């Protein structure tokens, strides 16, 4: 038995996606996607619309049939199972609460379909309504609830069935910002409290960062990178991840040498020299893409420091909690820095001469 199958059988893996593909005619909605979602983790599928994240989620739930590969839940292939036979529950994008049923009957629907005992159903429904803080609302009609309350009913309706995996299809997309942040916290609290496995689809990188144990970044049906929020952010695997998650300076450069301390040196076409994390599989003179996050680039007035890359401020943008300086370095490279609003130097004006510096540990070289 291959290693990953042993792992799945041992129960550490809740959902195993194995080389899954989904083709609509000549278009591949999913292309050779493989990943393991661990039991008890909050796992996000992140990507722009049309990247295949929802198709993958619906394939786990049984609403789409992959044309290639296999999906295992708790070590068992589920491709031959209908949605009502799978140990998953889904929270739909527009919630899909039953309009003809009250809150209590919505929540108890799954238990009733499985023929659960009436008293037991009532008890479990009340219990899960308490869990989502709706114990007073059991008798309401769903159209008498606020947006946040409807979210909670949808969660309760899914969680009452004690699913092996809870699938969430951008359920917070329609909420305004305040409520959205509140529901993010609520979801995270529920997931920790229950120790359940959540698979969460979103196109919002901030949401994915704030909530997830691990994130899979997808684009054009393919998996781009899987990792913790910090890994995704600090060590993007390719240009797509570097640009889709956060803001970064991307500079085309060529490796010029490798140092003893593990850093590599590279120089851009306009003469900008970088030190950065040595890429593992790069040749000595390979072309690379130097990635430097906006907030890792520091801007100093010329008269306050000795060393740095000489530049002038082209544009200064006030963004509330931070300031954005767009700078032209000697040689012509354009670099952007985001500076916290309380930093000395926030008064630097457009046209000012500045020195830029950064830590080599914050530069990632991508080989493409």
């Amino acid at each position, binding site marked *: 038995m291959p290693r990953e199958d042993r792992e799945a059988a041992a129960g550490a893996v809740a959902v195993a996606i194995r080389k899954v593909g989904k083709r609509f005619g000549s278009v591949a909605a999913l292309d050779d996607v493989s990943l393991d979602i661990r039991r008890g983790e909050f796992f996000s599928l992140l990507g722009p619309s049309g990247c295949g994240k929802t198709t993958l989620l619906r394939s786990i739930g049984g609403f789409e049939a992959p044309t290639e590969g296999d999906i295992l839940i708790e070590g068992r292939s589920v491709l031959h199972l209908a949605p009502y036979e799978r140990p998953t529950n889904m929270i*739909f*994008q527009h919630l899909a609460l*039953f*309009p*003809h049923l009250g809150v209590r009957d919505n929540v108890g*629907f799954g238990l009733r*379909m499985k023929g659960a005992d009436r008293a037991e159903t009532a008890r479990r429904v009340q219990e899960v309504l308490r869990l989502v803080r709706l114990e007073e609302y059991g008798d309401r009609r769903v159209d008498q609830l606020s947006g946040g309350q409807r979210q909670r009913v949808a969660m309760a309706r*899914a969680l009452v*069935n004690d699913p092996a995996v809870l699938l969430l299809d951008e359920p917070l997309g329609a909420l305004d910002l305040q409520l959205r942040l509140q529901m993010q916290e609520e979801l995270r609290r529920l997931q920790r409290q229950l120790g359940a496995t959540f698979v969460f689809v979103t196109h919002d990188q901030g949401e994915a960062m704030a909530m997830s144990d691990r994130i899979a970044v997808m684009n054009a049906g393919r998996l781009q990178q899987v990792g913790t929020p910090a890994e995704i952010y600090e060590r993007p695997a390719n240009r797509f991840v570097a640009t889709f998650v956060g803001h970064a300076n991307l500079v085309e450069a060529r490796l010029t040498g490798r140092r003893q301390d593990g850093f590599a040196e590279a120089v851009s076409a306009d003469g900008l020299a970088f030190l950065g994390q040595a890429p593992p599989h790069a040749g000595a003179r390979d072309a690379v893409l130097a990635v430097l996050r906006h907030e890792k680039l520091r801007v100093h007035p010329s008269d306050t420091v000795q060393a740095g890359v000489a530049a002038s401020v082209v544009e200064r943008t006030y963004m509330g909690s931070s300031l954005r300086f767009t700078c032209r370095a000697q040689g012509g490279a354009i670099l952007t820095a985001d500076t916290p609003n309380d930093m000395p130097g926030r008064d630097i004006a457009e046209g000012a001469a500045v020195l830029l510096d950064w830590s080599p540990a914050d530069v990632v070289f991508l080989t493409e």
Partner: protein
Amino acid sequence: MSAAPRPRDPYRWWRAALGLYTTLFLGFLYLPLVVIVVLSFNNSTSTGFPLTGATTKWYGQVLNSADLLAAFGNSMAVGATAAAISTALALLLALGFRHGVRGQSLVLNLILLPVLLPGIVGGIVLLIFFGYMEVRSDLWTTVLVAHVNYVLPFAFLTLYPRVHGFDRALEEAAMDLGATPMQVFRHVVWPILMPAVVATALFAFTLSFDEFIRTVFVSGHDRTIPVLFWLLVVDEIAPYLPAMAVVIILVSTALSLAAFAIGRRADRAT
């Protein structure tokens, strides 16, 4: 101190013209109905004016006429059956159409085409068809078939938008929660669509109840209300005709209003 002169309404002639037009329009629509109602209480052995006194005896005759009660029974029975059959067929078709059947647009056009066929042509076609098939004209064969045939496209047209607009996510949610396809229908699709189905059935019933031109070709010795009415008009201008008309108007209006009210509830539900 006098009030400032009010500016003259530049549209006053338009308003007057519109008022006159509306009055005439409503008059043309409703005056005949008012006349019928008035005449139904006219104490005169010949139908029509002049008015010679008030009576309710025609209503008594209408409600005690064996012919009329038989025809009324026939119309109710055939109407209910035709409504049930055509609504059930329309529902199955509409549900099937959501899944994108092969040749769907052809089937759709074939269902809707009879709406364009003039009623008298439809009646002759049915008459020739039943004659060729050697089916004897009778309430439960030819009349019922003619009515289902006539009502089905309308039932489908009424029901299809409601079924088509049904949120598929609700079915997926039910299935996700463990409901088998039969349970999905019973616990989600049916309860939500039921008001629309009832409204469609009532509408189908009123169409069947009012149908005359096809029925008269294939009714044989059995009479529905419109057929009886026509025979009464042709054979004799019976003095109780206006009273009969009023009774039929009341029944039809009540059913249509019920269908309308239930239909609105269905719209709010989906």
